[in-house]
């Protein structure tokens, strides 16, 4: 029988995408890793929108495409603006396998299994409640009145950072920093996927919706097609929802699902699961002051690593890749002689060089853009009236330019507003 070590090389808090990616990397490099998961099994507490970008995951797990639970490759992207019963949509059909749909519960379970097969110990049913410290140095974790020691701890506890909060490394979340995502996974008839969504075998759709979906509140709706189900939900910035949501949030999802233009996609459907999750939004204010301390690295949602571009989200690949980089940083720090803050600083460097920080810096203004209410109210309305003027004709047709200006004016926007909003969108997106 194997012996229980007095001290692990590394302890990972949370068997989500970030935690399992780092555990997998470290285990393959021969480190003695312990992963502590608060759920009954890995994946049982994980929630996301519905789509994952594949490139970073292929780098972490070389055999990813062969055995990961990929439901459908996203071959069709759709962006819709909703105004009353009108829907203006933009469709893009590609053939690339850049992103796929899945259940995160399944994907996270798969990742944890990879880590376990590589030699990591995965212990579920255990909620980490704090960090074990010696002076400023983190030397392990606490779970209630028990503790385990390790040379380094990777905090991948997710967006609700109860461990980091208890240690005083971060403040409690503020409504302005996060968005609330609410989602239903709905079993649909296979014919609906083939006929209404127009999808072939293995083909998937990612659909984002703006406007009346959220009753004009900053945020948007999303629809993803899974193997034999559809994920439908919406995201609302929490501070706007506090002041602006007049109804209970689940009703917005139900309304979206039963919208006259969408209900055909949900004919004969049955809810399989209902879930909700907080989403890092204002990343720069959410990010802990440091990501590497003496004996501690922070990754995934806990570090605030999520990109919301309005039309798409990137969370799972960011989380997994940051966990992977945390693993690499530990490997390098080990080579340098130990898990001191100075040695672990390489984590920050690896992040800065990666697509994670490059993207987060490039799109650091989208958070401000999301505060422009017109994007969620006037513009969807304008898009609808523009299309109405162009297509919904009785006799006379209008010139396009006049139609644009006319539609803008109908929705309370003059040419100057259009111009400044246009510049703002160009700048931030």
């Amino acid at each position, binding site marked *: *029988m*194997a*012996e*229980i070590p007095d001290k692990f090389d590394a302890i990972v808090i949370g068997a989500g995408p970030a935690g399992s990616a780092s555990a997998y990397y470290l285990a393959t490099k021969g480190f003695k890793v*312990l992963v*502590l998961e608060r759920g*009954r*099994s890995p994946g*049982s507490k994980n929630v996301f929108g519905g789509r994952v970008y594949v490139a970073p995951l292929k780098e972490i797990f070389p055999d990813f495409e062969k055995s990961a639970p990929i439901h459908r490759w996203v071959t069709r992207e759709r962006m819709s603006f909703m105004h009353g019963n009108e829907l203006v949509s933009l469709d893009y059909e590609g053939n690339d396998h850049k992103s796929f749909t899945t259940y995160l519960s399944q994907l996270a379970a798969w990742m944890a299994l990879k880590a376990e097969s590589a030699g990591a*110990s*995965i*212990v*579920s*049913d*255990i909620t980490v409640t704090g960090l074990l410290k010696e002076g400023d140095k983190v030397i392990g974790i606490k*779970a*209630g009145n*028990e*503790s*385990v020691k390790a040379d380094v701890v990777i905090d991948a506890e997710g967006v609700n950072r109860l461990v980091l909060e208890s240690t005083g490394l971060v403040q409690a979340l503020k409504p302005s920093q996060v968005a609330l995502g609410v989602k239903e996974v709905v079993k649909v008839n296979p014919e609906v996927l083939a006929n209404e969504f127009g999808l072939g075998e293995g083909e998937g759709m990612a659909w984002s919706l703006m406007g009346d979906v959220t009753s004009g509140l900053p945020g948007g709706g999303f629809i993803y097609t899974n193997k034999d189900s559809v994920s439908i939900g919406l995201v609302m910035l929490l501070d706007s929802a506090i002041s602006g949501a007049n109804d209970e949030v689940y009703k917005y999802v139900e309304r979206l699902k039963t919208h006259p233009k969408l209900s055909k996609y949900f004919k*004969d459907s*049955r809810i*399989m699961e209902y879930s909700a999750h907080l989403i890092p939004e204002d990343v720069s204010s959410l990010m802990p002051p440091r990501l590497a301390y003496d004996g501690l690295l922070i990754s995934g949602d806990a570090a605030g690593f999520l990109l919301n571009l309005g039309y798409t989200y990137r969370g799972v690949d960011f989380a997994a890749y940051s966990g992977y980089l945390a693993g690499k940083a530990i490997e390098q720090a080990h080579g340098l002689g130990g898990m001191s803050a100075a040695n672990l600083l390489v984590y920050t460097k690896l992040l800065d060089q990666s697509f994670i920080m490059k993207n987060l810096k490039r799109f650091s203004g989208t958070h401000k853009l999301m505060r422009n209410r017109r994007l969620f109210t006037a513009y969807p309305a304008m898009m609808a009236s523009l299309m109405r003027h162009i297509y919904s004709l009785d006799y006379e047709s209008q010139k396009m330019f006049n139609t644009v200006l006319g539609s803008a004016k109908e929705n309370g926007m003059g040419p100057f507003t259009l111009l400044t909003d246009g510049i703002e969108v160009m700048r931030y997106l």
Partner: protein
Amino acid sequence: MMGLNIVLLFKYVPNTNTVNVDPNTGTLVREGVPSVVNPHDLDAAEFALELREKYGGKITAMIMAPPNATKGIEFLLGMGVDDGVLITDRAYGGADTLATSYVLAAGIKTLEHYDLIITGQETLDSSTAHIGAQLASWLKIPYVYYVTEASLDNGALVVNRQLESCTEKYKVKLPALITVLMHSHPPRPITLENKLRAVIKKPVMMLTNNELKLNIQCTGLRGSPTVVAKTEFVSKIPRKKEIIKDKSPQEAAAWLISKLKDEGFLN
């Protein structure tokens, strides 16, 4: 006597706090329903752990189930159970209670020594409460059910058995089998130390028919005389909510009875 050697029998059952019927097909939705240790067996586990604390000894969790039940053993080890035995073989699949107790009896006989078999009052998914009585019969040992308390007295076991209107006290010889009254012993939480031991040391033994060498005509589906003649789906009754206010308890009860009569639930 040097402590009690306890066998804790349990079942790994679908978590049926949600039983949903597909509105389109009228069939039970089983997809993705995770399994849990039968909650009533958790009372038994707690009971066993308390006895071990009092008298010392050892607890072995035992189950006849497909290999995924290892996760159930791991959960019980997390509570503090010492080791586990998983009895698994394709030839044991599809068993009713008779074929199950037959195999469990053989499994228990492989143990060097046991003083006490403890299990839950019944299972969440079938609620037959057969196993205790059948197994005690196979092993020819005393059996007491609905037990709430137990203590040792000169090598014998003194137990309290809770009935609706009274408590009975029995003194039985060991080895014996008891089933624990449901909800009588809320389970303790999982501890990190126990869970670490479970995951790293994996103190779980597997038994198959290679070891037990049972006649497979008496195990699994073939050894099961139970025939499910028919199952009926009772259509879901939509929930209604009415709040009763400003009524005395007597008035409220009378109101409730008349309401239930109106709905056809009472005659």
